């Protein structure tokens, strides 16, 4: 921590300084409260005897009482109106392109910056011409404008720190934009709105400059009376009573807010540390070996019973449940950049297809197109046999698992999982049953009442999964859902996701950049690069028969040889000749996987290729060799067996491979 910058002496000095300053800050308040309880009309400190004279006066004297009530009314009017308008403005601002947005925001903030006197004169001139001076409404509206910044600022700040993905998650779970705002955005904004309200209220309650201009002779607010008391009346002590009440209210609000904020945090800390201790004590707690498959065997029955499309028992075990997805020349451009370029793909019902590609290859854009968060520029997108290109996300019935889970922090596990059912108006008893079913599906039965902050990453992942299947979606989309987990947990979750998909018969489109994950999970893998589909095939075909050099290199490791093919011979630019597995002609690439490269005497008919070992690396079950040969740099891998000695670095070797196992493709 930056505490390092201060030694013990410096720290003590800073603390003393802060206590000194604390006295300066609280002095005015500290002096007023005791005085308000003293009966003398001169100022004696400490007060001689306890008296409530000034408080009594506040209640009895009609002038003070009416002024206080009027100020209260104005402040409530202005701050309520301000939170309504200010919240609207902040939400609208968050959706505005930032170039114009910053100036509009500046407009909403400027009442705090422009001197009150200037605004006051402006109001005075306008309201005087409209004969509206001295009216409650004109003062209330004027104050509304003055306090608007106190709402807009904290609410927009909260909005920028909120993850926009939560709104997307709400939409993918079936909440309309209005519902997403009411159910997700507003509850999360509540603390900021409350802060804004309190600031707005206190400001309006205390405002005197504009009030003096607008109130005419009739409208006597509390600050006006106080102003008069201070400037003309010779320090009326009723002010001390008013102020003491104000301070008491302010302190009470702050203490309440602090207590309210601290309680759940403390709870979360305690429970959170306890559960992580559990995990440490029992590292296998995330893992339930062997149980997955059996559990899933019983789950789908329950799932289907609740499914809205099929009645109980309508669907038999093993029958697919998801719907097919097809893209027809789907294209999405961002300015000059083509993110998705005329993609054609047909995902069968119940199929697990993985979109694999490096970052920027368009895989997430493609997923967001299916989910409906991005609209295609051209092409068609079919779910089953329906074109869904123009259907908003919340009516697509597609479950989405987002990269960082996008669980709603203000709802507990049960409410999170029940969210898609709630927004669809499902009956509470039905919601409970289906949530229990979904949580059982991911082994989270015992966590229904936990807060999201009390869950580990793996547990959050499970809840997100349960939430995305609980409403019986027509397809399931996953955007690198396991990227944030450690390797062991990732392997476990892969098994669970695969089991879940099979048992539910769900159609799944899964995005990842991890080829091992793609191998473990998918029926078919679609390799993407530069917004174009390179190849769509089963993992086996993708590995054995890559269509081009990019796929060969991205999916597994490959030694690639470019050259000109003629019959079963590939002529390299340097003049070397290599055998091909089948006849080919024209420019071609020969792909030789590292495990095919053999050291030692060559197979029959293989040209003599000499090489030198430049590096060896032990990688668990295999040994990786880096070779420098006449054909260029080569990688070879060998299974490690106890008998074979590994070649030394620097040793000369002859290499070869079985030509039938290699693969040739167009360049």
């Amino acid at each position, binding site marked *: 921590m930056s505490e390092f910058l201060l030694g013990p002496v410096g720290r003590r000095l800073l603390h003393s300084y802060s206590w000194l300053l604390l006295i300066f*800050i609280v002095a005015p308040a500290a002096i007023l409260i005791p005085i308000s309880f003293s009966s003398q009309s001169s100022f004696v400190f400490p007060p001689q005897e306890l008296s409530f004279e000034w408080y009594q006066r506040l209640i009895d004297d009609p002038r003070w009482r009416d002024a206080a009530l009027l100020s209260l009314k104005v402040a409530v009017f202005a701050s309520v109106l301000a939170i309504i308008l200010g919240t609207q403005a902040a939400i609208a601002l968050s959706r505005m392109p930032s170039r114009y947005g910053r100036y509009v925001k500046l407009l909403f903030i400027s009442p*705090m910056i422009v*001197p009150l*006197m200037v605004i006051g004169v402006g109001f*005075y001139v306008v309201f005087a011409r409209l004969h509206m001076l001295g009216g409650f409404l004109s003062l209330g509206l004027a104050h509304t404008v003055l306090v608007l910044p106190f709402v807009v600022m904290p609410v927009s700040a909260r909005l920028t720190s909120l993850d926009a993905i939560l709104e997307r998650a709400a939409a993918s779970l079936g909440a309309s934009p209005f519902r997403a705002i009411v159910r997700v955005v507003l509850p999360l904004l509540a603390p900021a709105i409350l802060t804004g309200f309190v600031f707005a209220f206190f400001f309006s309650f205390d405002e005197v400059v504009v009030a003096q201009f607008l109130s005419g002779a009739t409208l006597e607010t509390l600050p006006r009376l*106080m102003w008069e008391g201070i400037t003309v009346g010779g320090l009326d002590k009723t002010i001390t009573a008013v102020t003491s009440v104000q301070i008491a209210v302010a302190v009470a609000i702050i203490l309440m807010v602090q207590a309210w904020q601290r309680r759940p945090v403390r709870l979360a800390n305690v429970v959170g540390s306890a559960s992580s201790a559990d995990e440490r004590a029992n590292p296998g707690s995330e893992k339930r070996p062997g149980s997955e498959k059996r559990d899933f065997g019983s789950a789908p029955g329950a799932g289907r019973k609740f499914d809205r499309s099929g009645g109980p028992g309508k669907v038999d075990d093993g029958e697919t449940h998801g719907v097919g997805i097809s893209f027809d020349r789907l294209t999405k451009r961002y300015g000059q950049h083509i993110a998705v370029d005329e993609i054609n793909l047909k995902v069968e019902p119940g199929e697990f297809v993985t979109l694999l590609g490096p970052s920027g290859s368009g895989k997430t854009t493609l997923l967001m197109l299916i989910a409906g968060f991005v609209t295609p520029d051209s092409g068609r997108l079919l779910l089953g046999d329906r074109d869904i290109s123009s259907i908003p996300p919340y009516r697509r019935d597609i479950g989405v698992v987002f990269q960082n889970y996008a669980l709603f922090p203000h709802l507990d596990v049960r409410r999170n999982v029940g969210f898609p059912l709630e927004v669809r108006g499902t009956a509470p008893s039905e919601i409970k049953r289906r949530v229990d079913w979904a949580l059982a599906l991911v082994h989270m039965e015992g966590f229904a009442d936990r807060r999201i902050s009390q869950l580990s990453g793996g547990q959050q992942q499970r809840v997100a999964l349960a939430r995305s299947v609980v409403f019986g979606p027509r397809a399931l989309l996953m955007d690198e859902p396991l990227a944030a987990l450690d390797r062991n947990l990732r392997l476990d979750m892969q098994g669970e996701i695969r089991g879940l998909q099979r048992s539910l018969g769900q159609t799944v489109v899964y995005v990842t950049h991890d080829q091992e994950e793609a191998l473990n999970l998918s029926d078919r893998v679609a390799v993407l690069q530069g917004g174009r589909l390179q190849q769509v095939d089963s993992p086996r075909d993708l590995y054995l028969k890559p269509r081009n050099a990019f796929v060969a290199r991205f999916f597994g490791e490959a030694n690639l040889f470019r050259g000109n093919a003629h019959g079963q011979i590939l002529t390299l630019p340097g003049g070397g000749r290599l055998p091909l597995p089948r006849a080919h002609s024209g420019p071609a690439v020969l792909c030789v996987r590292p495990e095919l490269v053999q050291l030692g005497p060559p197979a029959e008919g293989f040209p003599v290729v000499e090489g030198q070992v430049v590096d060896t690396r032990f990688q668990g079950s295999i040994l990786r060799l880096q070779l420098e040969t006449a054909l260029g740099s080569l990688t070879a891998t060998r299974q490690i067996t106890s008998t074979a000695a590994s070649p030394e670095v620097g040793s000369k070797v002859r290499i070869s491979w079985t030509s039938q196992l290699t693969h040739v493709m167009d360049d």
Partner: protein
Amino acid sequence: MILFIAPLTVMVVLFVVPLAVLLWLSFFGDDGFSIQAYAELTRPVYVNLMLFTLRLAFSVTLICVVIGYPIAYLLANMPGTSARWMTLALLVTLWFSVLARTYSWIIILQRNGLLNTMLIWSGLTDAPLGLVYNQIGVYIGMVHILLPFMVMTLVPMLRAIDPQLLRSALSLGANPRKTFWRVYFPLSLPGVVAGSILVFTMALGFFITPAILGGGRASTIVMAIKDQVQVLVDLQLAAATSVMLLVVSIGILLVYEKAAGVDRIFGTGRQ
């Protein structure tokens, strides 16, 4: 965008229109177009008033930075009892009636007030010091009111400084003092500037505190506006003075927005 209709209407009708009317009024008085009002403003009285106001705002801002920075540092880096009390005190102060505070300062600072009584009793002075109804009182009152705004803007900006950078500076051989001046302080400058802009613009338009605690010896430009309206009844002149002040404060804000983004003010922006 539907959301914008109501708030924008309110802002335009109740904020932009009144200010636009002022602009109009400053040029078009009872006898048609004239820049008479602006010419009036170049008189030494108003020039001196404006200069005094600027100097006052500038000094108050400087004092707030000097006093507030260590407090913000404490709040940002050293959580504990003093930090908790300080936060509570600052928040209560923010919500504590400006009028009441001004009133309270009179009680503390007046000739037979609390501070003078204590000073005489302790023997530090023989006669009561004139602490209020002059510029000293104005400074004390304004710093007290504006300090929380400075600290509240600084704290989040200081918190956002990556401790990793300090550790690396220390590991690279900079002693704590050098680390502070060469790494921490430069990184905190945007926060200092943000807080200063906020405090400065607020100080420019301050009315209550200088009007009461100044006792007539610290006239600022906004007090002149009030006189122009209520005593001189010269609305055109008041409008012209207002427009000038408006241009200055909006100008500062725009320059700052261009340079750093207004989100930083109040420390509420993204970090």
